[in-house]
């Protein structure tokens, strides 16, 4: 007899019932199985109506994030065996609107990403004839860690401020802003500061620190936000004490 484990999966099917509820599934407890394998087993063998997102199943695409026993996790990188003998509770990512079963609404997150302007901003585009924007390995190392973000949104579900303050830009977006602020080719820091030092920006963060704990890519958004707060403070004092040095 193969060992099994029970998955308590949160369902939400608005056409059938207006509120989420739990459904239990018994799945084989196999070594080398991750939570996502168990969900795929349910979908293939037990209940085809179960809805969830996944794609690469190797920790790169960032689409299979869910709450596993109330902790945000990439289900493709979380072994089922760690939760034996179970049961394991699988719920959609916290603080997001639920569309169906384990699928959350990402519109809000996409809007927040845009606020952080995570792309190279230059005052003037260099003509093509002048060649590429060059960068030394040391310059690259300055921001590389922040560039590892896969937009899996686990840090948003780990952050109570995201839930408490709907306007808060959130960990990943700020880390990505820093990814470009620390990029030697970028000139968009003033623009990002304008957006991120204000309402719902970096100073809404109270450094719970869980964003960095759950990050599957060791981006350390908490550190990125703290460094941003310090930069913002220096800028503020400069603008007050040395207004003539103001922005160009």
């Amino acid at each position, binding site marked *: 007899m193969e060992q099994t484990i029970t998955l308590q999966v949160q369902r939400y099917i*608005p*056409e*059938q019932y207006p509120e989420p509820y739990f459904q239990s599934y018994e799945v084989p407890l196999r070594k080398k199985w991750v939570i996502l394998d168990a969900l795929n087993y349910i979908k293939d063998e037990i209940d085809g109506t179960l809805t969830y997102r996944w794609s690469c199943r190797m920790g790169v695409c960032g689409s299979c994030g869910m709450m596993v026993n109330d902790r945000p996790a990439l289900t493709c990188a979380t072994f089922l065996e760690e939760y034996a003998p179970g049961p394991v509770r699988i719920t959609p990512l*916290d603080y997001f609107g639920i569309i169906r079963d384990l699928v959350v609404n990402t519109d809000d997150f996409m809007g927040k990403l845009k606020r952080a302007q995570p792309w190279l901003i230059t005052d003037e585009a260099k003509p093509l004839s002048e060649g590429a924007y060059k960068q030394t390995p040391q310059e690259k190392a300055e921001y590389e860690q922040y560039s590892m973000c896969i937009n899996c949104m686990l840090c948003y579900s780990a952050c109570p401020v995201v839930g408490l303050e709907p306007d808060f830009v959130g960990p990943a977006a700020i880390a990505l802003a820093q990814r470009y602020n620390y990029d030697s080719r970028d000139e968009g820091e003033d623009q990002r500061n304008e957006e991120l030092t204000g309402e719902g920006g970096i100073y809404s963060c*109270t450094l719970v620190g869980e964003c960095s704990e759950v990050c599957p890519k060791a981006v350390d958004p*908490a550190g990125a936000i703290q460094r941003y707060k310090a930069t913002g403070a220096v800028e503020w004092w400069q603008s007050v004490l040395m207004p003539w040095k103001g922005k160009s």
Partner: protein
Amino acid sequence: MSNAPKISAGERVRYKPQIYMPQMSIFWWVKDRAYVFFIIRELTSLVVAAYVILMMIQINALSQGPEAWQALTDWFATPFSIGLHIVFLILLIFHTLTWFWVAPTAMVVRIGSKKVPGSILIAGNIAMWLIISLAIGWLIVSI
């Protein structure tokens, strides 16, 4: 679904999800051990404020004369006061350690072009804390 509207050929229907927004409980901070830790850390600010108010009372008593100071030090010797100070001390040390713990995340210290690892910064802060404490303690006791 049986009650779903019929869609004729050529017609386009955009899916409009009925999004369910879970509500956050006011007791969100008991949900996770890390959150409890966080709330205790934040509440140490109350002890910081309470103790500096007590310092203001000490300065005031000291400026009013030997009797006022004696009355205050008599109160300091009561079991209630000592118990209170022990609780304060524990929470203040918690504040100190958590503060040092997060300090390296806000500050990147470089020696040459190399980043100093956070653990060394934390150790340095703790060493400095102990030295400063000894110095202040020596000053108060030796006068």
